Every structure is written in C-alpha cells, then in structure tokens.
C-alpha cells in the first residue's frame, strides 16, 4: 500500500520535472511551437557503415563539407580527404564562421526533453515529424575543424590521383562555386562519374568540364537545383529592383547569405546596378567573422575562375570588382556588429550577413532591429532554407519579405541535355529526381525521364552498380614480350601462349619470364619418388584444329614409319602401325595414341601430331 503510494508519488514527480523542463524548452510564437535550444545539426548517416573502413572522401564543393569534422573525428576514420584548394580554404572559412556564431551565444544545454518519443508524438508539426532527433549533434569546435582539415589532401582540376594502385580519381570543374568539382573514379576499364552541384551558367567559377564525363559506365547525379522553377537571372533582376525600391523609400535591405558564393555575384551585379540606378552612395555592409578573409581569398584563385576574370589578373587587376567597392568605401566589411560597425554605419544601407537560416549569427540582430518597420526589406537569396520557416519565430513582422532564391545548379532541362551529350550507360540518382515534386505533381518536366530509367536510391539504401569487371591491366616485361611466338589463327587474329611468373604489388601486376631452374646438385641418395613430382613444369596448352590424314601419313613416312594400315571408322580413321605395334585413332576433334610401354615411340608420335595442331 505504502509502496504503491510511493510509486505513484515518484511517477508524478518525474512527470512534473519533465513537464517543467519541457515548458522551458518549448516556445510559442504566432501559433507555432519552437524548441529553444543550442542549435543542433542533422548529420549524414553514420550507422550504415563503419567509418574506419572508409579509405577516401571526395569533396565536391565547400557547401558539401560542413559535416566533415563529424565524419573524420571520433569515428575511427583514418583515410584521406581530397579537395581542391579553394574548396578547402573557403570550406574552412564557413566552418570557422559557424563555430564563431555558436560560441558567441553559448547556451548551457541542448534541449532534450522534447526528443522523448512519447512527448515528440504529442508536439505539433514539423517537430513531431522530425526523424532521428537523437542523432542530432551540437556544433563542432575549431579544434575539431582543424583536425578534420589536417586530413585533407589538396588536388587540382584534371589531376589524376592514384588510389592504392587500383583506381584513379580526378576532380573536374563543375562550374558551381570556386573550386567546386565533379569526380571521375576510374580503373583502366570502368568509369564512374560523380556529378554533384554543377552549373552551366556563366558566373564567376571556371566553366563546367562536360566532355571529360563522356564514356562513363555509371554517372551518379545529385546536387541539382533546389528551386527548379526559379530562373537565376530573373531572380537577380527582381533582387535589384526590390533593393532599389526599398532604398529609394528610405528603408534598409537585409540579405541573409553565406559568406562565399553567390554573394560575389551579387556584389558584382550591384556594382554595375547601383550607379545606373542613381543609388551610388548607398553603403553596403558585409558582416561576418570571415568577411575579410572571404573577400581576400576570392581574389587569389585566378586559376579557378572563368576566363573573363582570369584575364584580369594578367593586367594585373583583381578579378572581382568588390576590390574597387572596398577601395572606394562603398563596401565595408566587419567581423561583427559590435565595435567599429556600430559607430560607422549609416542608413539606408544594404547588409549582407549570415546565417541564412536566421537562427544564429549577426542576422538575428538585424531582424530585431529592422523587423518592426515596413520601410525595410529582407531579401532571401539562398535556396537552402524555407523563408517561411526562417521567418516564423520573428512573427509578427512589419518589414517586407522578398524571396529571390538564386540557385545556379543544374535544372532538369539542363540535366537531360547534359546526359544526352555525355551518354553514360547508367544513371544513378536520388529517388526525388524520378518523380515530380509532391507539391507540383502535374509538372512532369520537373523530373528525370531517361531511357533506360535511372537507378534511384534513398537514404540508407544500398545499390549495386550495374557493371561487371572483366579485365585488369597487366604489364608484360619486355624480355617476356620479345620471347612470345604469335601464330595467326584467323585472319587478323593471332594468339601466343604465355607462360610467365605473375608479380602483384600494390594492385599493379607484372608478368616476368619464368626463371631458368637452378640445377639441383645431384644427390647420391635417390630421393623418394614423391618428391620428384615436378610441380614447377608449366601446364600444357590446349589444342585445337584437326589432323589431315594424308599429310599425317606423309609425315609418318618421313620419320620412318612406313607400314601403316588405315581403317575407316564412323568418326574418322584408325591407323595401325604394324611394325611398332601401335594404334593412332584420328578423329575430327580428338586423337588417341595407343602403344606399348615404349617412351621414345610415344614421344615421337606425340610430336608428329602436335605439328598439325594449334596451341592455345
């Protein structure tokens, strides 16, 4: 009775504690429920494979490496990461920025109560629909970033990197961002292309290398545009006109963006636009802990830029016009809103700052500062986050919202043209690309339609790639090659039997001539019969062809065998060698020599027969 009471009491106490902390975790805003917590990140799948067995990680572009520390640190990973220098440098900046954002607003704890299955079930969407919430992780530290980056090996476009002698990987320009790459993974006979985050538009990076993708057995396709219905050029126009409208009305413009990438193009576009729109005096502010580095780094990667920008370096001039914007004080950059910025900034102005999710970073301050005035405008250009979700916790908002997502990556139309061009035997892609987006199920133009249909994968599915490896490269040593005796079997086709010693080292194979046997010193005591079995003798070749009777008889005659009685059988002939008391049975595909225990005779007959046959 007492115990029951205690149990009851305990239970309610537990529940109360949970409820209390849950209430602390959850916040309501304009009818939606949010979790108030240290930001957490959803990681790539880690359960499916043992990361310590991964030898190599290939990085496509700097947006695709943000989870690298989660993969390379504390997982037993001991392989190599390959990336181009711009990807490495800018990737480092973006990770550094993320870490700085997190460190600026430390929260003691991550919210965990809501993750309880029983509780999560009761929460409104999208919280209740979130999957794998327990695998979400807090941000890594700078130390982990540095350790992860120390595993990166830098490569250049079209550099052939040998992996364990077995395959070769090569990054190709993908045209999407500075240093962005598609990868070719190939052996002498098979070629797999990994196409991720590619662009055919002319922006600042080097154009996409399409021709090197030809003759792929398998092309893995991912990283297509997230907004297939938006035309980047149109969006850019809209961006400029909205910006001009706001500034003219005396309002400020907030552009939440990443610190590298489209921002370079936006600045270049504005550089031309502002003067023509008679807004030349409007200041631009770029606020990020890595703003300066990002702007500086963009100017030193001439080799990775489009032709147009490359040729500027030859003059020598900086490839991007933002150098001039900085020089003329039109563009100013600050590590944060604190310090110099707060005393220097003038309104109306345009502010570029992160993070585009609006959940952390300096952008949060500007939301609070400018959100209440309808004169101001926030323009979303990054396609990674839903702008409605991003804005939700700030509601109600008076400021105007404009959504101009600029995603330069391939759309379905461009992809099908590209695939027609490079003609891979098979295409592998995420399942989403094989059907129209759920919200626009009638748009059959927003999916991949290929013959044969692409092989689709979804998270955690394992696909076998549809090719069979048949051949491997082997080197015949010149001495061996010279000793071969080819014979023509059919017009244009010759064969030679090869007997050689196989040497395999680091997945490279070499055939060497068989070494001459070292003469065994004659031992007095006769060795046991067993040990004499010659294991080293090369195996006999296969035989092919047939033996013409007349010619064979003639050659028997020549070797002194004259008394031959020929008997015709159903399948051929039987030759009786009268004097030698031997039989030779000749058929189309078979010869049988029967004789007494007379070794010299048998050998002589064998050699005669072999003269008429081809050896393989």
């Amino acid at each position, binding site marked *: 009775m007492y115990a029951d009471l205690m149990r009851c009491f305990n239970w309610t106490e537990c529940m109360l504690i949970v409820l209390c902390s849950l209430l602390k975790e959850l916040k309501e805003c304009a009818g939606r429920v949010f979790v108030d917590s240290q930001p957490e990140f959803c990681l790539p799948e880690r359960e499916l494979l043992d990361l310590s067995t991964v030898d190599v990680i290939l990085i496509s572009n700097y947006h695709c490496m943000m989870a690298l520390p989660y993969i390379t640190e504390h997982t037993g990973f001991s392989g190599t990461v390959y990336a181009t220098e711009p990807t490495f440098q800018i990737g480092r900046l973006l990770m550094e920025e993320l870490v700085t954002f997190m460190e600026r607003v430390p929260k003691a704890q991550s919210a965990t109560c809501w993750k309880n299955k029983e509780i999560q079930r009761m929460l409104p969407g999208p919280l209740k629909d979130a999957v794998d919430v327990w695998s979400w992780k807090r941000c890594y530290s700078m130390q982990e970033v540095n350790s992860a980056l120390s595993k990166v090996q830098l*490569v*250049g*476009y*079209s*550099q*052939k990197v040998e992996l364990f002698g077995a395959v070769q990987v*090569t990054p190709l320009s993908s045209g999407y961002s500075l240093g962005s790459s598609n990868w070719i993974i190939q052996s002498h006979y098979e070629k797999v292309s990994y196409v991720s985050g590619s662009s055919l538009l002319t922006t600042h990076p080097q154009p996409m290398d399409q021709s090197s993708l030809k003759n792929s057995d398998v092309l893995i396709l991912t990283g297509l545009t997230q907004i297939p219905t938006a035309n980047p050029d149109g969006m850019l126009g809209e961006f400029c006109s909205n910006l001009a409208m706001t500034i003219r009305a005396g309002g400020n413009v907030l552009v939440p963006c990443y610190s590298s990438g489209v921002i370079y193009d936006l600045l270049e576009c504005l550089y031309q636009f502002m003067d023509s729109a008679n807004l030349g005096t409007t200041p631009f502010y770029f606020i990020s802990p890595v703003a300066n580095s990002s702007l*500086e780094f963009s100017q*030193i990667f001439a*080799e990775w830029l489009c032709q147009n920008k*490359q040729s500027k*370096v*030859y003059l*020598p001039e900086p*490839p991007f016009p933002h150098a001039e914007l900085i020089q003329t004080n039109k563009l100013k950059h600050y590590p944060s809103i604190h310090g110099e910025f707060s005393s220097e900034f003038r309104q109306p102005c345009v502010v570029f700052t992160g993070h585009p999710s609006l959940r952390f970073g300096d952008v949060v301050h500007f939301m609070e500062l400018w959100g209440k005035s309808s004169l101001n405008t926030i323009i979303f250009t990054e396609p990674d986050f839903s702008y409605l979700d991003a804005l939700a916790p700030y509601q109600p908002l008076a400021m105007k919202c404009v959504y101009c997502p600029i995603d330069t990556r391939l759309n379905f139309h461009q992809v099908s043209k590209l695939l027609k061009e490079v003609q891979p035997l098979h295409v592998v892609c995420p399942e989403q690309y094989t059907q129209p987006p759920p919200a626009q199920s009638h748009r059959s133009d927003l999916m991949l339609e290929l013959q044969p249909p692409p092989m689709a994968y979804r998270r955690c599915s394992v696909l076998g790639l549809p090719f069979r490896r048949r*051949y*491997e*490269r*082997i*080197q015949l*040593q*010149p001495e061996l*090659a010279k000793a071969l005796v080819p014979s023509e*079997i059919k017009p244009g*086709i010759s064969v*030679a*039997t*090869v*007997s*050689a*010693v*196989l*040497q*395999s080292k680091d997945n490279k*194979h*070499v*055939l060497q001539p*068989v070494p001459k046997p070292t003469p065994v010193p004659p031992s007095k005591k006769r060795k046991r*019969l*067993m040990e*004499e079995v*010659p294991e080293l003798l*090369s195996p006999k*070749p*296969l*035989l*092919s062809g047939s033996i013409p009777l007349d010619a064979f008889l003639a050659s028997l005659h020549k070797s002194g065998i004259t008394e031959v009685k020929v008997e015709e059988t159903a399948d051929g002939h039987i030759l009786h060698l009268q004097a030698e008391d031997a039989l030779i049975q000749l058929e189309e*595909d*078979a*010869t*049988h*020599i*029967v*004789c*007494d*225990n007379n070794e010299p005779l*048998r050998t002589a007959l*064998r050699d005669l027969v072999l003269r008429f*046959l081809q050896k*393989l």
Partner: protein
Amino acid sequence: MPDIKVTPLGAGQDVGRSCILVSVGGKNIMLDCGMHMGYNDDRRFPDFSYITQNGRLTDFLDCVIISHFHLDHCGALPYMSEMVGYDGPIYMTHPTKAICPILLEDFRKITVDKKGETNFFTSQMIKDCMKKVVPLNLHQTVQVDDELEIKAYYAGHVLGAAMVLIKVGSESVVYTGDYNMTPDRHLGAAWIDKCRPDILISESTYATTIRDSKRCRERDFLKKVHETIERGGKVLIPVFALGRAQELCILLETFWYRMNLKAPIYFSTGLTEKANHYYKLFITWTNQKIRKTFVQRNMFEFKHIKAFDRSYADNPGPMVVFATPGMLHAGQSLQIFKKWAGNEKNMVIMPGYCVQGTVGHKILNGQKKLEMEGRATLEVKLQVEYMSFSAHADAKGIMQLIRMAEPRNMLLVHGEAKKMEFLKDKIEQEFSISCYMPANGETTTVTTNPSVPVDISLNLLKREMALGGPLPDPKKPRTMHGTLIMKDSSLRLVSPEQALKELGLSEHQLRFTCRVHLQDPHSDSDTLSRIYSHLKSVLKGYAVQHLPDGTVMVESIVLKVSSSGEDPNLKVILLSWSYQVNVENFLATVSLFWIRVIMQL
C-alpha cells in the same frame, strides 16, 4: 627498340638561351625558348634552323613548354612563333603567362628603342604569340593530344616556375627548368613525386656549389648593406623586376623596421608596383607562411621601399637602390652603376648569376677597367660583392631531386661544362645511372625498354592470385599460363579455355594409352584391387580412386586391367591420360616402379 632523343639548341653546356628539343614516342617537344644575355648578334637566339631549314616549325613540333618567365627561358618565344613561324600550343603556368609578355616588351623596348636594332619582334608579335599560350595548373594532367600528356610541378625558382613531366605511353621525361630545393622568404621548395622518368633533364647552374645556409647569407647581405649605409655610401642591387627583388625587399623591409633605419630604399622601374601586384594576386604560388598570413598582412605591401626617380641617383647621402636588369647589361641598373662606380664608398651587390659577356660578369671577375660604348673606359672603384641569392638548386639540391624522382637516366643542361663534368661523375657514382651532358646541337639518344601493357581477364588473374596464396613466395615463383589474343591493336590475356571459346574453336583432345603386359594369376578385379591398394599407399597426397566401373584413377590418369582371351594369366594393363596432364615422366616412373613391384610378387 624505342628511343628518346634530347637535343639542346641552347643551354647545352652553357647558361643562357635555354631551348631543348625532346623526341619521345614519336612526339617532338620544345622545352623553353630563351635568349642569351651575353650576345647581341644571331647567337642571341637558339638556332631554329636545326629543326628545319625551310620555314615554319608548326609541322615539326607537337608543343612548346616554357618553364618560367626569365628571358633566358622565354626571350626567343615571339621570334620563334611569329618570325620563324609556329602555330601550335605553347604551355606555361598562369603567373608565367601573366608576367612573360611584360618582360618581353621590356626587352624589346631596350633592344629596339634604345639600341635602335631593327628586324626584331614587335609589340604586336608579342601579343600574337601570347594568344597561342595555354595556361597550365600545377599537377593538372594536360592532354596535348591522344598520346602526349604533360603535368607541371612546383619549381620554386621564381613566381610561377614549373618543372614538367612529359609522358607518351609508358615513356616519360622530366624537365626541371630552373628550380630551388630550399624554401626562401617568398617561395616554397621544388617538389616532384616518384615518377621514375626515363630521363630527368636538370639545370646545373650550381653543379659544384654547396651553399651554406640561407640565414648566413642573409645576415652577410644585411651586414654589408648596413655598413655601407653607415659610412654614407650608396648601395646598388641589380635585380630582375620579379623574383629575387621581392625576396630581398622583404628582407630589407623587415631589417629597416627592426633597426629603425632612415636611409631611403628605392626600387627602380615602374614595374615594381605591378610586380608586387602579381605577387599579391598569385599568392597561392608563394610559400606556406606568406599564404597563411596574407589576409592579415600582405608581405608584398612595402612601407619603406619607394619608387625611384632617375634624378635621385645624384642625391647626396646614403641610399639603397634596386634596379633592373640584374646582370648590368643594359638599362637603369647600368646607368646607375656608371654614376656610382667611381666612388669607393659605394657598393654594388650582385645577388645572382651573371652570364658571360655582361658587365656583371666582368666586374665579378675583378675587372677594374671597363670599356664602354663610345670607347670610353670606366674605372670600377666601388666595392663589388657577390651574394648567391639566385634560387637555383645547388649540388645537394640536385641530388635531392634525383632521389625524389628516381630517373633511369640523367641529363644536365644550363651549366658550365667543367662543373657539369664534376656533377656527372658524382651522379653516376652515387646513383649508378647514366648521366649525359650534350653540347648545343648534339643529340643524346636513350633507349627505353618499355613493358607491354595487356588486358588480362579478371577471372584468370583472380584464379592465379588465389593459387599463389596470400603472400608471394620468392623462392617458389608460380608459373601461370594464358593465351594472348592479338586482334587489331588490342592485346588480351585470357585463359586457354576462354580463348578457345572466344575464337569459336573446338578443343582437340589428344590422349595416350600405354599397354603393359604382365603375368598375374589373379582375377582381373583382384589385380586391379592390388594395384589400387599399392598405389594408394605409395602415392600419398594424390587422389587415387577405385571407381565402381572397374577403373583406378590416379588424379586424371585412368588404369584398367584386362586379360587376354587366350591366356587368363597374361594381364594387359592400360594406362590412359590426356596430353594436358603434365605428369608423363611421373607416370612412366610410376608404371615402371609398379611393374617392378608386381613382378616381384
């Protein structure tokens, strides 16, 4: 047997007008196309008539590769491409492509405008020539055509200097251009992977020198500059606008800052500003330290170093002037030299190699009276110092590069014959490889022995590797057997069975049967049983089977017993086996042995 041929048109047992022809796998490549600083006549340029007597070179060359922007490596390029005639691709790195036309234009101006030479290439020709340039990135494999591929490596000699690997099939050549194996204040060290080229063509400027540490040389340099300044003298440092100049500027800049010195430092030409700009934009080509810190502090923004004006040369008081060109053969450095040479308080520091015939070379050899144009003589009273700052590998560095690349043959260019001889001996001794040092116009032929690449069927390879066991046993090499099918240009190695199948041939069975007669009173089946049990006990480790159809099988050899109709005691033993069974001797031995045993029963 395939050959690789190497012919220097310049830089063969000499420094200057580097131009080396390489012929490999049917491809002809020109490496560098330089001019000679020591000559003003025809010898200034390589002798292109060696390639062809009549006209254009396009048909004779597959590509031209320029290692770096120094004029002794690219000075003849517009002459070659526009005046002799070449329309094929010219490869160079981005920084070289950027800087090379500026130096060429400079060179043209000095030659045509100042010396009044005619029949020289024009500005337009330089522009047209540069249009034929294809930029190279480090480590990128560039496919010149289907067979010829080239790859550039970092050489560390000047901004954008590259070594290049040339490959046709399995034959390859590495050309180093000029390189430096120790990082300096602005550039990194040369590096190459173990590419095992058939020939490594290396410069050998400092073939016999082993230089002391860079730190010592830097301290010496600063001390000498400082002393001269202290006693009110002027220091002239003739340099090329790009390269050593930047290194020494960084050195003096930090020294001036540390010692709080006030004497002015000038840099002569208008090129400097531009030059420093190139360094800023191509910062990825500089050394690790500069690259790491460039966002915070760009090493190429100098506070103490100002632009020079001609009139400053007559200013009283101490000063340091960097002036171009580096060998005192023309231009501003020579003008300043003439002004300052008469005063023993002044000093000229030659920070690099000087080609024979230049004023630089003469004064370094101690010449005190110089004949100038117009029969005037110039007395040299100022102090002349030589500081080896030019970024060439020394003997130690050259050996280090050989260890890195592991070439099968070595070929020396860009050095003096006597010094080369010494290094050649050293290389041949230490690495036991042949080392060549052809003179200009002399061809070195190296026979290569390439192995033949063949496609082996994976089935065959896997089968053989499995038979070989997990670890190869060097004492017991395994022999594998396969059939090489040669069709068109493809070579495929497959198992004989697969070859038969692929070629649509049927196998021809060749069998042997051996009859042995002997007397045995037992029944046929008893005889067979006895044979079986006996063989079983003798042939341990072999499959000996007694089959129900009245045969005994030893591996694949079939044994049968029958008795003749007339004499039941006379048994005929038939041994039958196929040609492929590789045990004829073994079988014979067994039968004889066996017969002996039976007879004794």
